């Protein structure tokens, strides 16, 4: 946890650029990969998400934090097309994502993982990985019967999958069923599988939940590795040490809204955030400020 850390080129630029960004909710970033405006999602009478403006700087690691029920996961679902907002506009890489089906977002370079890990238990680890590759010829049923048409591509995919498994130190589990992995290993597998789609934006929903401290360290390194490879990472997390350790920028949500933004150091001294986590004076809404 010290400053003697090296950064990849895009990461260094992103960090540099974020220094001059206003520390206010909904602040504008110099080079956003993902922007959202007036996103609102209601469940019955409850407003789960009501975000006025939201931007993620390209090449950065951005953390989305907030107390339970703040609407973080719902916001994630909205951004990735797993849920539709009642109103709002959002763009990824300058392309409007309104009405884009959830399976199309991956092809556009935006991939997500889930809070409750979704490893495909009855498939082997390597099959899980192969599934992640996009644009597979053999995934068309009329090609399925003719192995000659996809054998070559399959070999390339397998090679890439094996490299990723080695990088995530999962290569010894290659042929095991994913169901036999531990919770932490499943998190790793899910992240590695998401990388098979060759994403530009990786969205991780609580990557550290249920992961033991030793594995947390290596997960941290892996996430930093993604940024150094030029990917943008947006993640939801409750583990404040991790957030402080690896994120370049932190966005805080409470009661469906963004209440604060800034570098990890700014956030840890922000009174609105402390109120949101530790409770506030009775009868006062979090959003009214001080």
């Amino acid at each position, binding site marked *: 946890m010290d400053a003697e850390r090296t950064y990849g080129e895009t990461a260094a630029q992103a960090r540099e650029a974020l220094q001059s960004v206003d520390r206010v909710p909904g602040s504008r970033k110099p080079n956003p990969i993902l922007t959202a405006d007036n996103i609102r999602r209601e469940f019955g009478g409850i407003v789960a998400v009501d975000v006025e403006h939201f931007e993620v700087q390209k090449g950065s690691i951005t953390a989305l934090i907030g107390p339970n029920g703040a609407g973080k996961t719902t916001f994630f679902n909205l951004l990735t097309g797993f849920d539709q907002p009642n109103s709002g506009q959002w763009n990824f890489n300058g392309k409007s994502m309104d009405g884009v089906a959830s399976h199309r977002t991956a092809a556009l370079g935006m991939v997500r993982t889930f809070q409750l890990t979704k490893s495909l238990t*009855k498939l082997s680890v390597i099959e899980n990985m192969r599934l992640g590759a996009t644009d597979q010829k053999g*995934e068309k049923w009329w090609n399925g019967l003719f192995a000659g048409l996809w054998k070559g591509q399959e070999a390339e995919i397998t090679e890439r999958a094996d490299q990723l498994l080695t990088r995530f130190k999962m290569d010894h589990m290659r042929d095991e069923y994913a*169901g036999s992995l531990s919770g932490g290993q499943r998190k790793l597998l899910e992240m590695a599988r998401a990388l098979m789609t060759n994403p530009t934006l990786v969205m991780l929903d609580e990557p550290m939940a249920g992961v033991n401290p030793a594995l947390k360290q290596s997960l941290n390194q892996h996430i930093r590795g993604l940024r150094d490879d030029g990917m943008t990472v947006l993640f939801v997390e409750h583990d404040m040490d991790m957030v402080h350790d690896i994120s370049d920028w932190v966005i805080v949500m409470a009661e469906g809204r963004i209440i604060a933004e800034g570098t990890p150091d700014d956030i840890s001294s922000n009174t609105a955030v402390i109120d949101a986590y530790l409770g506030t004076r009775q009868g006062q809404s979090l959003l009214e400020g001080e």
Partner: protein
Amino acid sequence: MDWNLIFENSLKGFIGINAVYFAIAALGLNVQFGYTGLLNFGQAGFMACGAYGLGMTAHYFDISFWWGIPIGILFSVVLGLLMGIPTLRLRADYLAIVTIATAEIIRLVVRSVKFKTYFGGSDGINGFSGSFRKLGNDFGIQESDKYGFWPFKFTGREFWVLIVGWLLVAIFGFVVYKLMKSPWGRVLKAIREDEDAVKSLGKNVYSYKMQSLILGGVIGTVSGMIFALDRGSVQPDNYSRDLTFYILTALVLGGVAKVSGSIVGSMMFWGLFTFMDNFLRQVAKDPVSIGNFTIMKSTQVGQLNFILIGITLILLMVFRPQGVFGNRKEMAFDGR
């Protein structure tokens, strides 16, 4: 008690035409249920599509019998779309409800008086399989001759259907096996495990589920065709709910998500069924009576047989839930 006859019939049941059409239908159901996790309780409806496709060539369209094959397949593709469009976006149980209802609607429509001109009402359709029989003759199989060796002696009529039937089992077994080894099959198996994960990786889950439903349905249709050709007639009440559930029983008996499971499961189902039926009939022929109470009457054979089949299935589920060919290790990871 004639053990010779019991065994001869059981062995014939093992590879007989019932096992054949069950095996094909179970292969189709396996694509949907075993590999993709779609609860299709309307396989009988898809089979009816094939049977009526063939039957209607002679009865209503008045065209060559061979057109019945593409017509039957077309019917089942339309049926798959009709069932799938409203339900495949929803949870699995909705598909189960819709398929069971659709299959019943089909049966009730084709047996109705109103549509007798098209489907022949409750009498069904007869006399359309001439061209198929003639093809057998052209291959040199005489209908009245006996073929095979003890215990597998069949008339030429049965023998021809069996040859075509087993050939189709082999073809569809191969096709399903190959497809499930391909990346396409991998997507289906992944959908069975978790749809959202597959969606997040950029696969159009809805489209894959539709493909699976239709492929399984078309295979079921071919099964219905073989069934109709064997009987030489189409009877609406053959395509009721119980047919679907017996096929499902055979599939589970053999082991889901295995090609061999669907085929051998069907053979075992009919082997066992024929054995029990013949055995109980022999018992009933010479009933043991205690006073007024007769242990077995011939009218009770059918009921008792199905009771025993049910008990077998229950015992199987308790002691070997993966079926005969299933993989115990795989079963252990059942997340749902």
